């Protein structure tokens, strides 16, 4: 065969293949006849799945912090969470809620409002039995307390800095308790077979270290699979990845995740075990009484 013909045939083959690949990306899958949710709906649903599933939650957390020189440190703690119920549900029992129309029931279940977190540390040795309490508020600063048993000291802590490291890891306080969705402008910049891709730009640049961040949100479950943070030059410098997801009591739960500092390749891996939802926790547990007397039935 002549060389020119061979080249032409190869070129055609490549281009056909390439076009096929491109088509596969841009053709919408056949099942997508349902309307795509609005950006606001995606953001709310994602926020709900990340931080609000179940009325209460409990998890044992193990963090492995790996620095740029590959030295490892670990943090072990138990975290319990209580969500403030929807105003409609406050005076109603569970049975009464079940009798409401489905739309109202869903509204109550998916309510995202104030929360309370109690973190009880096990390791390392210098923070053993320390207890940390956060009352997460909407529209005003969180309230935080730290209890150190060896001094019987209940210290109240300023919540001015939400974007500082949580216990020396790559996860920030805001990553652990949730960033208020009203702080950013949200845009749906792309969509693939599996993901909604959002670009989020902060409304107030003063208190954040990123210019914008992108989230890859799994369409079926609304689990965030990756978050990339970009600096003023548009370079990605920090990345979150969900590494393992389990269905626990009907809730898709990230049980293993990683936060990486791309500048020096240091990272923290966070692993959740013994995750439980709708634990019978009362709001009063998130108070001074239980900082001084840890509720061991939830914290072992």
């Amino acid at each position, binding site marked *: 065969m002549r*060389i020119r013909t061979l080249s032409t045939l190869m*070129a055609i083959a*490549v281009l056909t*293949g390439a076009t096929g*690949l*491109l088509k*596969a*990306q841009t053709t919408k899958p056949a099942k997508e006849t349902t309307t795509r949710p609005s950006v606001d709906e995606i953001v709310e649903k994602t926020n709900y799945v990340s931080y609000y599933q179940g009325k209460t939650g409990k998890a044992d957390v*193990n963090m*492995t912090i*790996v*620095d740029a020189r590959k*030295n*490892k440190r*670990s943090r*072990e703690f138990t975290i319990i969470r209580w969500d403030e119920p929807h105003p409609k549900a406050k005076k109603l029992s569970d049975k009464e809620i079940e009798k409401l129309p489905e739309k109202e029931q869903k509204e109550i279940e998916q309510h995202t409002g104030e929360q309370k977190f109690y973190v009880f540390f096990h390791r*390392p*040795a*210098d923070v*053993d039995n320390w207890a940390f309490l956060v009352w997460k508020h909407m529209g005003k*600063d969180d*309230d935080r307390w730290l209890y150190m048993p*060896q*001094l*019987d*000291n*209940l210290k*109240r*802590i*300023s*919540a001015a800095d939400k*974007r500082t*490291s949580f*216990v*020396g890891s790559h996860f920030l306080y805001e990553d652990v308790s949730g960033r208020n969705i009203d702080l950013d402008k949200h845009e749906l910049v*792309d969509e693939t077979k599996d*993901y909604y891709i959002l670009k989020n730009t902060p409304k107030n640049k003063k*208190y954040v270290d990123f210019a914008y961040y992108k989230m*890859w949100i*799994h369409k*079926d479950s609304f*689990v965030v*699979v*990756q978050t990339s943070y970009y600096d003023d030059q548009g370079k990605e410098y920090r990345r979150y*990845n969900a*590494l*393992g*997801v*389990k*269905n626990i009591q009907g809730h*898709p739960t990230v*049980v*293993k995740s990683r936060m*990486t500092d791309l500048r020096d390749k240091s990272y923290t*891996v966070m*692993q959740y075990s013994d995750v439980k939802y709708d634990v019978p926790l009362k709001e009063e547990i998130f*108070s001074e*009484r239980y900082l*001084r007397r840890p509720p*061991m039935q939830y914290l072992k």
Partner: protein
Amino acid sequence: MMNKLRTTICLNVVIVSMLTAISHAQQGPALPPGLGGDDGGTDGPTLPAGLNGDEPGGPSLPEGLGDDEEPLPEREEDEKVLPDWLDLTGFWEVRGGVRTQADRHQKDASVGETRLQLKWMKAWKKMSFRVTGDFLYDPVLDHHSVDLQSGQGWFNLREANVSFTPLDWLDIRLGRQILTWGTGDLIFINDLFPKDWISFFIGRDVEYLKAPSDAIKLSAFSDFANVDVVYVPQFDGDRYVRGRRISYWSNTLGRRAGRDAVIDGDEPNEPFRDDEFHLRIFRNLEGLELAAYGYWGYWKSPGGLNPVTGEATFPRLNVYGASARKQIHGGIGNVEFGYYDSKHDRSGEDPFINNDQIRFLVGYERDLPEVAHDLRIGMQYYLEWMQDYEQYKDALPTTAKSADEFRHVLTFRISKQYLSQNLTLSMFAFYSPSDSDAYLRPKVSYKIDDHWSVEFGGNVFFGAHPHTFFTQFARNSNVYAALRYGF
């Protein structure tokens, strides 16, 4: 011709690779195990074929982090030194310090000891036990026989108590325990629990500022208000400066004194007769913490002098006070006051017993993310106002140095963390404009790893007049270092 073919093939390969890369990037990150395509039944989505979640390599790495990346670390189990069933934790520490100037009444070493602390804790839903003990070898003090009350000797029992909840609204803790309340930062107005000032001044860990109480604490909780009552059957005084390792100003001698004139204290020690009551009524009103306090007992550090024997005395004292603490503009603001009712000298005419006092505190502490992460500053203003001042001055012997009616103290705290919060630089300063003296506590601490940590610091006292509260310790200024292994 062959060259032309080669070029064409290379070009095609490049185009295909680029297109593949573009298509991958548009696909987004690989789905983690648990989201791999199928919606799954009640057990949840099955892991993709070929991927077993228990493999040490972990799930496949997302695109963009490269092939040279190491596999994810195994769940890092902090190597436990002791088996879990022992329920024992603790630390071993070596600490040494020297005075920065000579004091002829003291040794050069301010602290030099090795300590092993063991903590045993066992907790169930409604009951728990806690025992904490220190084994101490302290050649500087050179007093090895054990005295559980004063905490001296080779064994120091810090905690030995049982906690239980007999009723839903009532918590009880009985035994030896550390107790703290009040809103001040190293300033105590309504916290009349015993303090170990010696440990504080010589550079031991700040944990040792609080000495244990042998007491029963009852805490009752309700929607309206909560109440703490602490009954101490036998007076637990401060571990105050006597001169054995820190020199002090002696009004009687008119100079600084130390080991040559160790203070003899006549502590009330009759069980059930020389007892103390502490009370706190408190409530958290949506973030505003309010409290009222009461104390019926004795001055904790010497509050008087027996003119005949020269012994330090601890006259009766009642304290009534209140406090409030709230978050303001991202920081924590607090205010507290207390009325010190020196029962045996209400008129102020007895020169050998402290007068009544009013104590007041206002403070503010805040993180400063506007400047840097992990930066915190705090400031306080503290006032001691002696009551019946005229009577005090009239009764004072002419040779004695008089105290001011108003003693003002400002405190300043700054701390900054570096290296992922493993390195902490901090400074706490007391400054009294009325006494013209100051006390600085600089410190550098570094966590080498999850077990080892090291600390360097100082206690620096200086001022214009040798008899004022901080300046009297000027010759005790010291620097110290400590190495600790926690387990």
